[in-house]
């Protein structure tokens, strides 16, 4: 391993890789937070007693879970500009639109994350003991109060392990956004490899960084579960 390759400044690739890592992390965090929120909303729509809404959301989520991430990324990156142009054409605004790559990537990853998170949240909401909800109602809690104090906290606790797994999945999908030209970690590592012909070292460094992030996520998971389930511990 040649450490000079990873130094900062004009000769090394350290600063470029750091910028790539910054983009990857911003993309991952934004997609995961947006996706989890969307997934929660979608799960509520799926369990809500509204005819057709549940079916519709289920179908959309099922499709998003069945097609490759890359397909969704391309569809949003190419499609959003055309959809926007078609939408604005009646108002006399014509022209070519360039959709921001970063937000295209975020939207695609967030939608896929939401499709899986919705499944996790739905299972969690259905697993909340009916007795607890009955008890809350018997105490005279309004539906809003039952939701915010009983159903949501309990469901969230049940959903936690599934949600952390999804964090890992989405994190591992982030390199796919380099297909629409985002200068993320793997793209920078590829450029560095092309320049120096040391592909193996740079991709190995990328791998180590991703495994390091995975280890941190796993550590946070065990920490948060320790906290969330502290009332269930014997001591």
């Amino acid at each position, binding site marked *: 391993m040649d450490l000079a390759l990873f130094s900062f400044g004009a000769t090394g690739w350290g600063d470029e890789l750091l910028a790539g890592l910054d983009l990857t992390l911003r993309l991952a965090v934004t997609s995961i937070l947006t996706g989890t929120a969307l997934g929660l909303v979608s799960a509520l729509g799926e369990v809500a007693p509204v005819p057709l809404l549940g079916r519709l959301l289920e179908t959309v989520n099922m499709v998003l879970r069945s*097609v*490759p*991430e890359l*397909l969704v990324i391309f*569809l949003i990156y190419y499609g959003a500009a055309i959809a926007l142009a078609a939408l604005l054409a009646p108002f006399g605004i014509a022209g070519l639109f360039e959709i921001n790559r970063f937000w295209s990537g975020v939207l695609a990853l967030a939608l896929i994350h939401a499709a899986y998170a919705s499944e996790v949240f739905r299972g969690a909401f259905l697993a909340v003991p009916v007795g607890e909800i009955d008890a809350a109602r018997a105490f005279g809690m309004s539906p809003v109060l039952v939701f915010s104090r009983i159903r949501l906290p309990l469901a969230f606790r049940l959903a936690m392990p599934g949600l952390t797994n999804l964090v890992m999945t989405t994190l591992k999908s982030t390199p796919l956004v380099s297909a629409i030209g985002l200068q993320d970690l793997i793209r920078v590592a590829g450029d560095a490899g092309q320049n120096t012909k040391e592909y*193996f070292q740079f*991709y190995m460094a990328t*791998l180590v960084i*991703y495994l390091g992030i995975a280890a941190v996520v796993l550590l946070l998971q065990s920490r948060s579960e320790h906290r969330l389930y502290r009332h269930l511990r014997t001591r």
Partner: protein
Amino acid sequence: MLMDAATLLDYLPVLLAGAVITLELTLFTLIGGLIIALPIAFARNAERPGPRWFAQSFVFFFRGAPLLVVLYLVYYGLPQIPGIKESPVWFLIARPMPIAILALSLNSAGFLTEIIAGALRNVPAGEIEAARAFGLSRLQTFARIIAPNATRLALRAYGNEAVFVLKGTAVVNFITITDLVGAANQVYFNTFDPFTPLFAAGAFYLVIVFAMLQLVRWAERRLNPWAFAAPSRERHR
């Protein structure tokens, strides 16, 4: 208009050629993943710490690494191994398809190892003891009791993993292979209509996923005939 019938008809052969590549990659990866994962699953359950440690590292490595990183490492890393270009294996791996299948198989094997090892561990101990008490040899016990039981236990998870393999094959676009996504992309560059090819490709993927899940359901019926023989009392759930 989201779907254009004329475009679809014109470019259907392109999309079909891409679908064939996607199906090939999926099939070979499923086989390759199984070949790699089976011995490691046994190592994962071994009593000696050495093999167990190796299997656990393998699983952590390939489950934690993004598929694209693994693919790039194999694609760019293998040619850098000294002497490999003179060795006979080079003839086999100098093309992108075998490299893609190798990388996809390694990635899938990381997940499959856990599925298979878990299924093997969960075969009821009483059944194994009973088989041993009947005088079945270790090999017979494995072939008649452990293997069928574990297959039943692993089937559902294996079906889900197969869907992930199918979705994962799309990364081959990064190493110049034109699969179903790549074909849709080509049609877009020729027509500037992203919706027709990408929706058509999506429909193809849905059909393949449905076929896979149907196959798993059929296998489940075959392997657990008693569970489907009489109407279950828990039907209304």
